[in-house]
């Protein structure tokens, strides 16, 4: 085992201790530096990375425990050994509570020091190796921004990788929040068109006329408000990928227009005569059963077959629960970076609840729940209570419970919104009403998109800093 990568900082106000301990450790091949007091040690910790900090408990000014706390804040992985002149249970307990690796009573046995240093070095080596292995493993479970170790998803990644290389139209099917757009972006990034643009359009968000102009562009004066010529998404995506989200929601006229473009790769701008030819790869997505819609005559069958060249079905999260811990780890890591907050993960009972949940809003819902947890968590580990997941008490009243119809409706709307992770379109579909009606009900009952009561939105922003 090589010690030359291990950097030790010795902090003691007595020069003779710094000299003798530093000299002893140098002969063991460690890189050693010394500091005579807390503040200068902290400066050294701020400036450089250290593996081990050996610090005297009693020093004038900043004592060893204060140095320990500040050092752990700056470099959490640092192993800190406290030196004390007298072995008292109190000092030992205080040191260990503050996060010390161990403590040594001065003077200590050479064998004790030697064994302790070797133990720290081999543990740190193991941690490093573990990190490298875990990262390598994560790469195996990864397809760009998608992460999964379930066999079904691994097969999906394989299919997507192969499909990405072709120019064929891809139809991504899956429930809301499963990551259809993330997959579309990954396919684009893996395709020979990666250098070209990725242009996305949500077909459900716009009226038919607006969507037509959005997709194909328009000439100046083609309709009221068309003040200038505008390029549509098809033109913008030239040389790249056009992602048509919620393609199942488009109306009959646009279905026909779309079919023509897919067949001929040519179209006209709204109000224009010029035929425009584009080189675009189509990736479409929907959470509807498009085949069934085609059979029922609600969606053009010929368009369905044009889109359904390479269908890729993303399974819902509840069918691949083994991915929950992997996704949790990945999201928590990302949230920690985004929020500039130290987060080590979730508590075991929180993980249990996350594993048990059905995730109707899929990965998006999981991310939202974790984001809430990360904001609310007061420690470095997200607790079950931080997640605010619906518990039994929040469930709609059982049949026979006395409650007004309005009360039942309010609770049910809130529960559905919470379950879809705030997806209004999906919630409206589940409730069997249109989105406008749902918005009206949300306004009436004072419910936010996440299903929470609206008054909570007025809580002071500083409440996260508890």
């Amino acid at each position: 085992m090589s010690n030359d990568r291990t950097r030790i900082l010795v902090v003691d106000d007595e020069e003779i201790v710094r000299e003798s301990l530093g000299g002893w450790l140098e002969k063991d091949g460690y890189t050693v530096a010394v500091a005579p007091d807390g503040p200068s040690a902290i400066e050294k910790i701020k400036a450089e990375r250290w593996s081990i900090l050996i610090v005297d408990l009693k020093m004038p000014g900043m004592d060893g425990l204060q140095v320990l706390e500040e050092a752990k804040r700056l470099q959490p992985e640092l192993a800190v050994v406290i030196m004390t002149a007298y072995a008292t249970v109190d000092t030992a307990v205080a040191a260990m509570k503050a996060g010390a690796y161990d403590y040594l009573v001065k003077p200590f046995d050479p064998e004790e020091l030697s064994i302790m240093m070797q133990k720290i070095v081999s543990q740190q080596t193991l941690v490093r190796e573990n990190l490298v292995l875990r990262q390598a493993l994560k790469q195996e479970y990864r397809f760009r921004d998608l992460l999964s170790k379930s066999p079904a998803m691994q097969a999906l990644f394989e299919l997507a990788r192969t499909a990405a290389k072709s120019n064929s139209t891809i139809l991504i099917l899956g429930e809301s929040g499963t990551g259809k757009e993330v997959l579309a972006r990954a396919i684009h990034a893996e395709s020979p068109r990666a250098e070209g643009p990725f242009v996305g359009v949500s077909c459900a968000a716009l009226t038919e006329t607006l969507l037509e102009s959005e997709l194909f562009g328009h000439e100046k004066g083609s309709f009221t408000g068309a003040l200038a010529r505008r390029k549509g998404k098809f033109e913008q995506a030239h040389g790249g990928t056009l992602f048509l989200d919620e393609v199942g929601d488009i109306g009959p006229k646009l279905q026909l227009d779309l079919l023509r473009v897919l067949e001929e790769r040519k179209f006209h701008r709204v109000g224009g005569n010029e035929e425009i030819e584009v080189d675009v790869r189509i990736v479409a997505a929907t959470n509807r059963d498009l085949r069934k819609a085609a059979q029922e005559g609600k969606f053009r069958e010929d368009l369905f077959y044009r889109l359904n060249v390479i269908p890729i079905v993303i399974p819902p999260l509840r069918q691949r629960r083994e991915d929950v811990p992997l996704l949790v780890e990945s999201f928590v890591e990302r949230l920690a970076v985004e929020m500039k907050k130290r987060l080590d993960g979730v508590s075991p009972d929180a993980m249990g609840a996350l594993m048990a949940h059905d995730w109707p809003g899929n990965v998006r819902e999981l991310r939202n729940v974790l984001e809430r947890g990360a904001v609310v968590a007061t420690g470095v580990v997200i607790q079950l209570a931080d997640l605010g997941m619906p518990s039994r008490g929040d469930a709609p009243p059982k049949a026979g419970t006395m409650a007004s119809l309005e009360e039942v409706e309010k609770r049910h709307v809130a529960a559905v919104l919470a379950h879809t992770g705030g997806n209004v379109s999906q919630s409206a579909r589940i409730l069997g009403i249109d989105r406008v009606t749902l918005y009206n009900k949300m306004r009436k009952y004072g419910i936010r998109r996440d299903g929470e009561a609206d008054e909570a939105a007025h809580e002071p922003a500083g409440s996260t800093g508890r």
Partner: protein
Amino acid sequence: MMPIFVWWIGEEEVERDLVDHVHRHLAAAFQRPVLPWDRPERPRHAFDPRRRQHLSGAILRWLGETGPREGKVLGVTDRDLFIPILTYVFGEAQLGGRAAVVSTARLLEDVELFGRKLLVERLAKEAVHEVGHAFGLVHCGTPACVMSRSPAVREVDEKSSDLCAECRGRLRELNGGT
């Protein structure tokens, strides 16, 4: 080639066989003349009455000041040695410096049981080890190498009295052809 001087600085009468063995091993390990340095002075100022041990760092400084003007000097003593932070040391050296010191005090464990040869071997190993530090060698990861760390006599007994090939190579580099 600068010699290595060996100086008995113990309080008891020198035990010639012990020191002769040290001479032979140092000469073999470092390939240079090993000469005796006999003076009546003793580093009594290094004695710490509270710990009832000798401070090895003080002895090293004293060896440098009082000993030969050139080459390396190894003090051999029968007094128990310590550095302030540790309960005891078998010896100490100035890393890449001139002086080194070794003591028989802590090497006597089990000697009565297994015979004096054990002490002779242990002392020679620790002498080569400390002089190795004075030449700039640090602890070696090869368990059999004399430069491997030996915080207790068990490790001293387990290692050989020779430098491993790697440490011999490093020593050549450190000496830069001297």
